């Protein structure tokens, strides 16, 4: 196992004269190189592969329950042959439907868009972009991944329980989630959900602490905080949010485990089931919601900030222009990070809480639109008068901005408590959060994968398949989620197994079919992405050292990926990362961060 170069403080600070590869004297086995690796680049790829596995599972689940919503009256014997436990007479059981909805949300929010998105790009990009040989603690980094893996094993096993996986929604509100007699999924399935989440949070914390200490301590010479690329800034703040909010979810889950197993009454009071009073008194189901959303809301920023950071970087590189308002972008992330901790109860406007408390949360929730708006205007201005290479990373970055606008604006509707009284828990909410956090974060992730694929695998992805993938995903996402706004405005509630029982909600039968068909097509489009991804790892065109002519340090490290990241000394940094098209008279439209200021520049170089 080769770790000496990684933790050697001399090599780490970049002053070492000894070449990293000279220390490569241990033989690496397959297991130490690819499985229990301590190299941040490998761990990043592990996060990515596991995230892809979970995304396929989560997507497949949505296809199954969309089939139920699209064709509630038809039977599907072939589905029953595939998923016998979930179907009766060719029809999906309501219990299975609610389990699928719950697991889809849990998997997508936590496993794909939290663990995999941050895990992949924080690992691949932080050391390479700040000029470090590895993470501050490579071991903690590996532990973070393997805790994530373990949490996944527990969660995945719960799907095969005879009583089914957890089915109380991804928000697992008690008492439904606390009392097994109210729902089969609240039996062992819920216990396993809670245990998996506690392990998962361990993974997030270990990872996050590592990211923060790496960014603070291991920057190369000249890499001041205000010379960091926006990707690193975003991942840095994301880790801080996680460290501050995830522990609250641990207590939230542990107290629920107590209520379930030890007969405590943290969340339970005055409960009557089957004509019998249960011996719970004094607890509050609303307390659970406060604890849950104290993480749950910052969680959406944990999901979206890394995407924002990557989109900022991709748009600057691909439009050959500096990101507009670099500092404004940093301070808006900071603003979102801080305000994000004061908006959680906007998920609880209709719980009967004191209207005065509600009004405070209206104020903070709508204020958070200001830094978000600044970011959108800055991205658009970055494109203005650029020289934009409209390739797959650009398309997904632009798609991200489009989605973020669409979903962000409906946030102004829902954040206003008065409107929430009508739209709370309707399909309007489903449309809002899927667009602004689900789809947008996926677009940011895709932009990042297409952009940094050469950095990760030394080869280029296929552009044409990238264009097709983009078209299917972008058009499909709008066709699926845009009409859901109308369902919501017509009063259709979310989390309904079928709409046929209500005359008022059943009018959209055809629309629901269209949405379901589109969802299947979009899912198949993602398979095309996977084909492109896997094919390109082995057969893609070899990437040049700096395929996008970018300024950041990751493109100075040998493209084939070596342990310790740089032969010899770590490059020193002399400028910010966005010197694109700085000199209108030069033929070269980029100046990498490790290029010293020229004599001419020294006179009038403005640091942004």
């Amino acid at each position: 196992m080769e770790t000496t170069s990684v933790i050697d403080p001399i090599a780490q600070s970049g002053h070492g004269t000894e070449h990293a590869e000279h220390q490569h004297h241990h033989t690496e086995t397959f297991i130490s190189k690819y499985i229990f690796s301590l190299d941040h680049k490998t761990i990043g790829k592990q996060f990515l592969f596991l995230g892809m596995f979970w995304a396929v599972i989560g997507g497949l689940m949505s296809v199954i329950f969309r089939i139920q919503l699209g064709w509630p009256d038809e039977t599907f014997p072939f589905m029953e042959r595939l998923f016998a436990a979930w179907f009766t007479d060719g029809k999906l059981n309501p219990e299975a439907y609610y389990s699928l909805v719950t697991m889809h949300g849990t998997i997508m929010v936590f496993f794909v868009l939290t663990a995999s998105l941050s895990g992949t790009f924080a690992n691949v990009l932080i050391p390479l972009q700040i000029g470090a040989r590895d993470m501050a603690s490579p071991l903690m980094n590996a532990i973070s991944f393997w805790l994530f893996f373990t949490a996944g094993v527990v969660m995945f096993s719960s799907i095969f329980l005879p009583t089914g996986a957890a089915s109380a929604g991804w928000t697992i509100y008690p008492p439904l989630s606390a009392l097994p007699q109210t729902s089969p999924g609240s039996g062992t399935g819920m216990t396993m959900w809670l245990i998996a989440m506690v392990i998962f949070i361990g993974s997030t914390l270990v990872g996050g602490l590592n990211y923060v200490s790496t960014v603070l301590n291991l920057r190369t010479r000249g890499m001041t905080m205000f010379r960091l690329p926006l990707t690193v800034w975003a991942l840095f703040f994301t880790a801080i949010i996680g460290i501050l909010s995830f522990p609250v979810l641990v207590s939230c889950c542990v107290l629920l485990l107590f209520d379930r197993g030890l007969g405590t009454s943290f969340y339970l009071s005055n409960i009557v089931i089957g004509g019998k009073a249960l011996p719970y008194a004094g607890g509050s189901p609303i307390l659970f919601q406060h604890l849950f959303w104290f993480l749950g809301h910052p969680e959406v920023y944990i999901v979206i900030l890394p995407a924002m950071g990557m989109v900022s970087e991709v748009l600057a590189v691909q439009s050959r222009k500096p990101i507009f308002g670099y500092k404004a972008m940093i301070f808006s992330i900071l603003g979102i990070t801080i305000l994000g901790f004061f908006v959680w109860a906007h998920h609880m406007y209709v719980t009967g809480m004191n209207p005065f408390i509600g009004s405070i949360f209206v104020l903070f929730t709508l204020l958070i639109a200001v830094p978000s708006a600044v970011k959108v205007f800055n991205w658009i201005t970055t494109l203005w008068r650029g020289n934009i290479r409209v390739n797959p990373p650009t398309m997904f970055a632009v798609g991200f901005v489009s989605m973020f606008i669409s979903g962000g604006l409906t946030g102004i509707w829902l954040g206003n408590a008065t409107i929430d009284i009508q739209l709370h828990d309707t399909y309007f909410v489903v449309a809002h959060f899927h667009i602004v956090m689900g789809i947008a974060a996926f677009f940011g992730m895709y932009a990042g994968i297409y952009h940094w694929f050469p950095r990760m695998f030394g080869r280029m992805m296929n552009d044409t398949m990238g264009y097709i993938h983009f078209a299917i995903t972008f058009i499909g996402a709008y066709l699926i989620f845009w009409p859901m706004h109308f369902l919501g405005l017509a009063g259709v509630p979310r989390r309904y197994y079928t709409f046929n029982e209500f005359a008022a909600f059943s009018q959209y039968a055809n629309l629901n079919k269209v949405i379901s068909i589109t969802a299947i097509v979009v899912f198949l489009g993602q398979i095309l992405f996977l084909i492109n991804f896997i094919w390109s790892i082995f057969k893609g065109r070899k990437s040049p050292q700096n395929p996008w002519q970018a300024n950041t340090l990751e493109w100075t490290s040998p493209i084939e990926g070596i342990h310790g990241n740089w032969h010899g000394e770590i490059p020193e940094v002399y400028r910010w990362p966005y010197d694109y098209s700085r000199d209108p008279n030069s033929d070269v439209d980029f100046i990498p961060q490790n290029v010293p200021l020229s004599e001419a520049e020294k006179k009038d170089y403005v640091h942004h």
Partner: protein
Amino acid sequence: MSILLGLLTLVLLYIVIVQISKASDLIKTLRSGDKQEESFGNSAVFLSVIGFAILVYSIVTCFTYAHTLLPPSASEQGEWIQWLIDITLVLTAIVFVITQALLFWFVYKYHYRKDRKAYFFADNNKLEAAWTVVPAIVLTFLIGFGLQKWFKIYSPTPKDAVLIEATGKQFLWTIRYAGLDHALGNRDFTLVNGDNELGINWNDPASRDDFMADEIVLPVNKPVSVNIGALDVLHDFYLPEFRLMMDAVPGIPTHIWFRPIITTEQMRKITKNPKFDYVLACNKLCGSGHYNMQKKVRIVTQEEFNTWEKSQKSYYETVVKPAMDNGTYKQVEVAPLQSTTVAEMAKKK
């Protein structure tokens, strides 16, 4: 068989796409090598056409779906919400169209050309100040309007309100009316038994004329006060056409009041649907039967309501008392626990 055929077609489709894509990228590489020779003109057109098509789609559907949305608000409170939605819609629609159009227009207009240079434009304090301050001002107005309506909706309940109680349990609503004394009898979950699922304390005189109703019947133009509760798990008292929602929480009573303004008969004419009925639904996931937890709601004239109210029978008189008389119902003599609040306990000490 047909499924197998479908799968086969799908696999073939993937193979075709992959082969075409490989060839198309190969041609591009042969033409330009690794040099950035490509103009990206085609892909820029591709992206902005898709973007503008989606923009048109999103605007057009707003009009084509408009008639499928909720009918005019059946409550006064809903009208206030609708007013705020209208303002928010106009403001967000303007921002939506401008930003999306600029985004996809810029992508086309400024796509890569070999002979062009991007304009080095790193920051501009005035511009950034402007688009920080303007949204802040607009949002301040939305916050102000929103909170004004919010506190209006949660204003104290008028004294003359009709008092009802809605209790959710898996998977139905129980509706209790206060009766002629306009007071609901006390409840305590420890009093619950097979005959008394709500745990009503029959020693409380206010309980004697309370009646249970199969449907919610309410007079038009008169405030309605709703006490909301739940027995087992969370539910949500949701009246879509009235634009109102309030969670039902075990152990924590919640409350809303509202004023219906359109009778069922009138709404049938407005919607041109003779079968139209208002409905109470559950809007908080409560288990496998959540999707079908409903109760009919009828809004009638004051006269119709008075007649209906008089025709309803007291639950105590018709069910509880006869059962007590023939000994099948056990009465709990002392009202325990529930009437003793913490404050009262402190007082006794």
